[in-house]
């Protein structure tokens, strides 16, 4: 069986790589710090809500672009919300796609928007799998009797 120390090292390496690749940023660290004994599942819960909410947003956006006339103002509002929630979670790459997306909306650039939608979907799937892997590791560490190392 893998020891807690080995798992912790794996976790630390994985988290560092996620930061380097821009999947996560300092906001995620802040969220980890907010978690304590009074609410030990806060982060998992928040990420779970984020994943569900993001899926709904992406579906709404897809539908919006399937319309005969695209309502760029509405789309922009949705993307703005998506940007906000990504920023709150610390999902940096996703947030950056949203920023680009909003700009294309302002220009009413259909191709640009469609590209961003595709990117947003792609980044969403990626960050979802990263979170899944991260929380799986956390569970393993706790099971092995260790504690979750924090990013500094």
């Amino acid at each position, binding site marked *: 069986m893998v020891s807690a120390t080995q798992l912790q090292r794996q976790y630390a390496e994985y988290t560092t790589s996620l930061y380097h690749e821009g999947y996560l940023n300092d*906001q995620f660290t*802040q*969220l980890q*710090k*907010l978690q*304590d004994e*009074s*609410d030990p599942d*806060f982060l998992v*819960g*928040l990420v779970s*809500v*984020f994943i569900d*909410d993001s899926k709904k947003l992406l579906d709404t956006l897809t539908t919006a672009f399937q319309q005969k006339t695209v309502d760029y103002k509405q789309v922009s*509002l949705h993307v*703005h*919300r998506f*940007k*906000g*929630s990504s*920023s*709150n*979670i610390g999902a940096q790459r996703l947030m950056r796609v949203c920023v680009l997306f909003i700009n294309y909306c302002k220009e009413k650039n259909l191709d640009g928007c469609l590209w961003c939608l595709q990117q947003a979907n792609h980044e969403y799937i990626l960050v979802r799998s990263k979170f899944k892997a991260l929380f799986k590791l956390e569970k393993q560490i706790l099971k092995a009797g260790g504690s979750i190392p924090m990013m500094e």
Partner: protein
Amino acid sequence: MGVAADSQFHVLAVDDSIIDRKLIERLLKTSSFQVTTVDSGSKALEFLGLHEEDDEIHNLNQPSVSPNINQEVEVNLIITDYCMPGMTGYDLLKKVKKSSSFKDIPVVIMSSENVPSRISRCLEEGAEEFFLKPVRLSDVNKLKPHMMRTKIKEIDHIDHQYNQEHEKHQEQNVLETKEDESTQQSNGNKRKSMEDGDLTRQNKTQIQWWPYCRFD
């Protein structure tokens, strides 16, 4: 309610995004505040017991009452997102500040966009602070002084009202001139409105520099 002093402070958080609500709730609870979250400005007004249309009728019989007496639950601060569908945070701010019952409740605005004109508009309308999202614990730590200041004001106000009634009561028992007492009362009112003016100036000097933003 609770033993700790902080558990007396109740914050009403308003945001249409569920993630933002969960986050602000966590931040506020970590700071030992009581929290109620709602997802719209109209729900916030409903919670306060303020009717959207007009608060004049609502307050006809109570000209100058301490802000929280009419509510079932006392709210010590309102923190609201700026961008919300329907009633924006700015609209909510204006409604609260126009209401005679609730204008003294400190209001804080949150926004993910750094727009200087938006920030100054909110501060001019009476917002105590303007937080850029994502909101941090260091931001939430700035809230308590605003709530404490309002509590002190409330106590002063109740104190002043008590004194007024006490004097009126004395008036009935004494056959002396009424002019002296009414002079005393008007001086008291002047003092209170001066304090209000000072506080507004104080809030305005809290504007710090805002990094220039490319979103307009």
